[in-house]
C-alpha cells in the first residue's frame, strides 16, 4: 500500500512528439488502445463506475437488499446534526492523525539519520527497518499486535500495564503505535533525500563553526524540507484512512467503548454491520473532500517552510 501511492515521476516525453509540426504518416493507434484496454477498462469499471455509484448511493437510503430509495441530502444532514457517534469518529480520527503522523515521521527521520552515517551493515538495517512496512498492513500483524498489547500479553507482562487494547484511554495509542512502527517507507525516502544533500554544505557549515545540532537545523532540515513535505502529505492522507489496525485492535467494533472508532471503521460499521450503505457512501464522500481540503492546506502552508534548492537559481 505504502509504496504504490508514491506518484511516479512524470514520464519524459518521447522526442518524436516535441519536434514535428506535421505528423508523419498517421500511425495507427489501434495497438496502443488494445494494449491499454485492460487498464482503461479497469479504471472505468473498477474506479470511475463505483465512484459514480457511490455518489448516487450517498443520496439514497440503501440497505443492501432492497432497491435504493432517493432521500436527497438526508444522509448528510443526519451525519452533521443528529449523529453523535459520527462526531466521535471524527474526533478519534483527528486524535489519531495528530499522534501517529508526527511520531512516525520523527522516528523515520531519526532512523534515516542514524543509517546515513552508518559505515557497515547499512543494507541489513535498511531492510530490517523496512520489513514492518511490508508486513504491517496485513491483518495478521494487527492481530499479533492485539495479542501483544492485550490483557496478559507481552507488554502487560513486561510493564504491568494490564493490557492497553482493553482500556478506552489507551487503545487508540496501541493503534497509533502499530502505524508508527511501520515507518519504513518514509524512512527510505528520507534516506534518499539525505543522500542528495551535497557534502560541501556540511563542510562549509563546519568551517563556520556549526556543531552537529546547528548543522541539522540549518542544513539538513531546509535541504530535506521537500522530502519532509512529501512524506507529511502522504502519511497524513494515509492516516485519515486508517482501517486495518483499528479494525483488528478494536475487535471489529471500534471498541472498547468506541475509543478506536476511527472514521473508516464507523463507515464500515454503518455500511456492512448496520446495512446503511447510503449513509456509508455519504461518509466516504465527506472523507474524500476533507482529505482533499487538508492536503490543499498543507500545500498552502508549504510555501512558507519548504525550500527547493532550485529556487535559488531564479
Amino acid at each position: 500500500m505504502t509504496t504504490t501511492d508514491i506518484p511516479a515521476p512524470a514520464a519524459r516525453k518521447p522526442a518524436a512528439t516535441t519536434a514535428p509540426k506535421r505528423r508523419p504518416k498517421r500511425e495507427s493507434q489501434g495497438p496502443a488502445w488494445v494494449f491499454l484496454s485492460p487498464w482503461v477498462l479497469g479504471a472505468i469499471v473498477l474506479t470511475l463506475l463505483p465512484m459514480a455509484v457511490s455518489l448516487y448511493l450517498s443520496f439514497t437510503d440503501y440497505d443492501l437488499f432492497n432497491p435504493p430509495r432517493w432521500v436527497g441530502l438526508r444522509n448528510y444532514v443526519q451525519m452533521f446534526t443528529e449523529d453523535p457517534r459520527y462526531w466521535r469518529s471524527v474526533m478519534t480520527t483527528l486524535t489519531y492523525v495528530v499522534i501517529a503522523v508526527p511520531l512516525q515521521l520523527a522516528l523515520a527521520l531519526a532512523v534515516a539519520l542514524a543509517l546515513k552515517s552508518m559505515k557497515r551493515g547499512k543494507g541489513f538495517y535498511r531492510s530490517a527497518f523496512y520489513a514492518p512496512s511490508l508486513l504491517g498492513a496485513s491483518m495478521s500483524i494487527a492481530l499479533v499486535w492485539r495479542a501483544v498489547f492485550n490483557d496478559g500479553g507481552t507488554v502487560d507482562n513486561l510493564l504491568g500495564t494490564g493490557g492497553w487494547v482493553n482500556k478506552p484511554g489507551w487503545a487508540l495509542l496501541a493503534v497509533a503505535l502499530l502505524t508508527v512502527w511501520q515507518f519504513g517507507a518514509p524512512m527510505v525516502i528520507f534516506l534518499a533525500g539525505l543522500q542528495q544533500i551535497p557534502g560541501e554544505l556540511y563542510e562549509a557549515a563546519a568551517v563556520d563553526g556549526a556543531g552537529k545540532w546547528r548543522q541539522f537545523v540549518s542544513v539538513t532540515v531546509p535541504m530535506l524540507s521537500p522530502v519532509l513535505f512529501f512524506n507529511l502529505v502522504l502519511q497524513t492522507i494515509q492516516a485519515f484512512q486508517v482501517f486495518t489496525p483499528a479494525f483488528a485492535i478494536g475487535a471489529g467494533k471500534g471498541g472498547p467503548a468506541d475509543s478506536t472508532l476511527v472514521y473508516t471503521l464507523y463507515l464500515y460499521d454503518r455500511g456492512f454491520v448496520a446495512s446503511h450503505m447510503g449513509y456509508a457512501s455519504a461518509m466516504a464522500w465527506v472523507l474524500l473532500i476533507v482529505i482533499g481540503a487538508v492536503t490543499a492546506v498543507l500545500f498552502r502552508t508549504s510555501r512558507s517552510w519548504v525550500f527547493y534548492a532550485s529556487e535559488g537559481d531564479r
Partner: protein
Amino acid sequence: MPGHRTKGFCASAAALVLCTMLAGCGGSGESVGGGKVVLRYTWWGNPDRAERTEQAVALFEKQHPNIQVQTSFSAYEAYKQKLATQAAGGDAPDVMQLDYRQIDQYASGGVLLDLDKEKAVLRTGEIDAGLLATGRLDDTQYAIPQGRGTETVAYDVKAWKASGVPLPGRSWTWSEWADAMRALAEKTGKPGATDPGQSEDCFEVWLRGQGKSLYTKDGGLGFTADDLTRWWTFTDRLRREGAVSPAEQTTQLDGSVENTPLGRGEATADSNWDAPASGFLALIPSGVALPPMPSGEDGTPGQYFKPSMFLGVGAGTGHPKEAAQLVDFLINDAQAAKILGATRGIPVNESIRERTESQLKDFDKTIADYQASLEGSLKAPPQAPPSGDNALQATFQRDYDQVSYERMSPREAAENYVTEAKAELRS
C-alpha cells in the same frame, strides 16, 4: 509499415486473448473437477461443530458423487458481516446457515430461494409445523429450522463445587442468580459470570420474565428506556461489586466461547445458548453443567425454545436442486443426524429426534436432557425479530460498553439505545 503493424496486432491480439483467458479463470468456477457441481456451504460455529460438519459433508459427497461441497465457517460476528456483504454483492452462498434475526431481512431482500419450489427433494413433513413456520415469511418457506435451542447458564462444575457455594437448582430468580454470583466472586476471587449487561439475549430473558418483550407485534420496540435503565443498573452494580466480569473482559466477547471469561478461565459461569456451550468442553475438560436461565421474581420464565438456526438456499444459486438436496440431507438423513448430534441444537426432524435422543452421547445428551427438563414450562417464542434488530444487537453491546467503562450512566446509555433503536426500526 505493414509488416510492423501486423506484428503489433498479433501481439495485441495475443494479449487480449490472454486477458480473456485470465478473466475466464476468475469466473464462476462451477464445473471444477470433471463436471462436478460445486456448492458453497457457509455457517458459523466452533471447531467442534466444524469437525462434525466436515464429516457429514464428506458423507453427503460420497452419496452424491456428482456434487462437491466447499464449506467455510467463522465466528458469529464475522460470519454475519461476511454474509451480508456477499448477499449484497449477489454472491450469496448456495447453502447458508441463518439466524432467526436474519430471516426477515434476507427473505424480504430477495436473497433466499423459495424452498417450496424444491419440495421434490427437500422433505419437511417430519418437522413440527410451528417450528417450521418460523422460517416462513408471507406464506413462503425461505428457510428450514435446523435445530432447537434455548439459553442456559453454563458453568464449570469443578470450580463451582470447589468454591463451596451451593450448586444451582432447577430454577432460580434473577436475584438468586445475582446472590450466587456474589458468593462465587467472594470465594473464588474472580467474577462469577460474564457480565450479562452486554447481551441483548439476556436482556430479553429478563424482560420476558416480567411479561414484556423486545418487540411489539408490529415490529416496534416493546420496552422503554426505563426498563433498560433498570436492567443496566442491575448489571452495572454487579460489575462494580466484581460479581460479574469487568469491562476489559466483557468487551472481548465476539460470539465464540473461547473469548468468554468462562472459556478463558476468568469466571465460573457464562450465559450462552445451549448448543454452542458444547465448545466449553474443549476448554474445561472437567465438565460443564447447564442450569436454566434465571426467571422473573414471581417465577415467570423468560427463556424460550428458539429455532437455533436455519438453513437457506441462495436465490441466485445455479444449482437449486443440489442445494436443496444438501439441506435435505443435513436435516432429514439419519446418518447425518448421528454425526451432527446436537451441535446445532436438538434435531428438528421428529422421528430422527426420537431415534437419536437415546443415542446421544456426552454433551449432546446433556443438552437433550436440559431441554427435556424445560419441556412444557416455557412460554411460546416471540415472532421473528424485525430487520433492524440485526444491527441493534451490536448497538446494544456498544451502548453497554459505555456503561461498563463508566463513560455513561445506565440511564444515558439506555436513552441513547432507545433513540437509535426507534430510528433503526423505522427505516
